[in-house]
C-alpha cells in the first residue's frame, strides 16, 4: 500500500460474506444517500446505476448441495501504486486518489464521459449516465443536498460517502479537533447493514476493527492477483465463495 503508514489514513472496508443475509439494504441506503437516479425499467443491468452492486454467487453444485450467497461490491478504492487503473487513464483529471485518505474520487462535473475509466476498472464499479436523471416531481424533495445530482453523459461511482467524511470533519472542527474518532465517519451502506456484516475504518490504524478483520485468515480481496490492492476486504470461511469471488465479477 502506498501512503505514509505511520500516521497516514487509508480508509477501507471489510465485508463479512458469511454474515451477509443478502437483504440489499446497503444498496438501497446507498441510492438514497447519494441521489442515485432510478428509471421505470432498470432490468438492463448494463445501463443501470448501482454504486454498490450486489452479486449473486452459487457453488455450482446440484440440489440439494447447492448454496448461494450474495456479494456486495462498492467501489474498492484500489490502492494500486502509483495510481489506480481508473484514475491513470482519465484524460481530464476528473478522477483521482486522495493520498491523504486513500479514497478514489470522481467529479462528475469535470468528467467528459469518455468512459475510459469504466473499461479500466477491473470490478465494474463505475457507471455511465446514459440518460438524464429524472425524478417524479414529488420525489425531488427527498434528494439530499450533500451530494450533487449528475447529468447524462458522465460517469459516476461510489465515493465511500466522502461527503460524510467532510461532515464528520466539520463536526470535529467545531469541537476543536483535527482527528476523527473511529466510527464518526461511516458510509451509508455500513451504517444500514442490519446484520452488521460491514465494517469501515482506517486500515493503517492497527487498533481499528477494520484493520484487525482485514488480517483475519478468512480475509480475501477480489481479483487479488491483478495487484490492484483493493481496500475493500471480504471475509468468508467458505472455500467456494473465496474461489468464485475471483471470477464472478
Amino acid at each position, binding site marked *: 500500500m502506498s501512503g505514509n503508514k505511520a500516521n497516514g489514513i487509508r480508509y477501507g472496508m471489510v465485508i463479512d460474506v458469511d454474515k451477509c443475509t443478502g437483504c440489499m439494504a446497503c444498496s438501497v441506503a446507498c441510492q438514497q444517500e447519494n441521489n442515485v437516479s432510478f428509471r421505470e425499467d432498470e432490468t438492463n443491468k448494463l445501463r443501470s446505476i448501482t454504486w454498490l452492486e450486489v452479486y449473486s454467487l452459487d457453488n455450482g453444485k446440484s440440489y440439494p448441495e447447492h448454496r448461494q450467497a450474495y456479494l456486495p461490491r462498492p467501489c474498492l478504492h484500489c490502492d494500486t501504486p502509483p495510481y489506480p487503473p481508473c484514475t491513470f487513464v482519465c484524460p481530464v483529471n476528473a478522477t483521482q486518489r486522495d493520498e491523504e485518505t486513500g479514497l478514489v474520487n470522481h467529479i462528475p462535473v469535470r468528467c467528459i464521459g469518455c468512459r475510459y475509466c469504466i473499461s479500466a476498472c477491473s470490478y465494474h464499479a463505475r457507471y455511465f449516465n446514459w440518460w438524464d436523471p429524472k425524478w417524479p416531481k414529488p420525489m425531488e424533495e427527498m434528494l439530499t443536498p450533500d451530494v450533487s445530482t449528475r447529468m447524462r453523459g458522465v460517469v459516476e461511482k461510489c465515493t465511500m460517502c466522502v461527503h460524510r467524511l467532510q461532515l464528520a470533519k*466539520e463536526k470535529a472542527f467545531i469541537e476543536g479537533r483535527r482527528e476523527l474518532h473511529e466510527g464518526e465517519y461511516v458510509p451509508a451502506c455500513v451504517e444500514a447493514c442490519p446484520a452488521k456484516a460491514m465494517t469501515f475504518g482506517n486500515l493503517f490504524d492497527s487498533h481499528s476493527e477494520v484493520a484487525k478483520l482485514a488480517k483475519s485468515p478468512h480475509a480475501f480481496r477480489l481479483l487479488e492477483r491483478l495487484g490492484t490492492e483493493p481496500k475493500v476486504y471480504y471475509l468468508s470461511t467458505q472455500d467456494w465463495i473465496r474461489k468464485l469471488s475471483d471470477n464472478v465479477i
Partner: protein
Amino acid sequence: MTEENKKHDSGLLGWLLFVVGFAGALFVGWVVFPQLLYTTEYQPINYNHQIHQEEAGLSCEDCHYFREDGTYAGKPMLSACVECHGEVQGETEDEERLVSEFVEPEKEIPWVSYTRQPDNVFFSHVAHVKMAEMACSVCHRDVENEIKAPPVKINRLTGYPIEIMKMHVCEDCHARENVSNSCDTCHH
C-alpha cells in the same frame, strides 16, 4: 490627385479604420460586453446591517453562526426575522413589506446571494474560519457599517454572481498552506 496620393490617402484611411476598429473593439470588450454579460438583481427587501447592530444590538453570530454539527448557517431563515418582526416595529417601507409579503404568508425571503457557488461545491466555513482563522472579509464584503444592501451582478451565461471566487484561488491557497487539494475536499 496622383496615383501615389491616392495610395497614401487610402493608407491613411486604412490606418484610421484600424484604429477605429481597435478602439471600438476595446470599447465593446471592456465597456459594452460587461454591461451585456451581467444583469443586475436587487434584493427583495433592503437589509440594513448597521441598524441591526447598533439599534437592535445584534452581533454577527446571531444570524451567521455555526450549527452544532459544524455546518454553517449562512443567511438566516425567516424564523430568525420573525423573532423580532412578527409585527411591524419601525417606519421603513422595507420592514412593512417584510411583514406583509414574507412574515404573514410564512414565505422564505428569496435573498440574492453575492457569493453563490454551484451545487457541486461544498465550502467548509468552519475549516476556514475556525481552523485556518481567516476573517470573513477575506471573501465577503465588509457589511459592518452597511446601510443599503448593494445590488448583485449576475453573469447571464454562468448564472454566478460577479464576486464569485474561482477554483484556482482555492487551489493556490490550499497549495500554499499545504492543505489537501484533492477534488473531493470540495466536490461531491
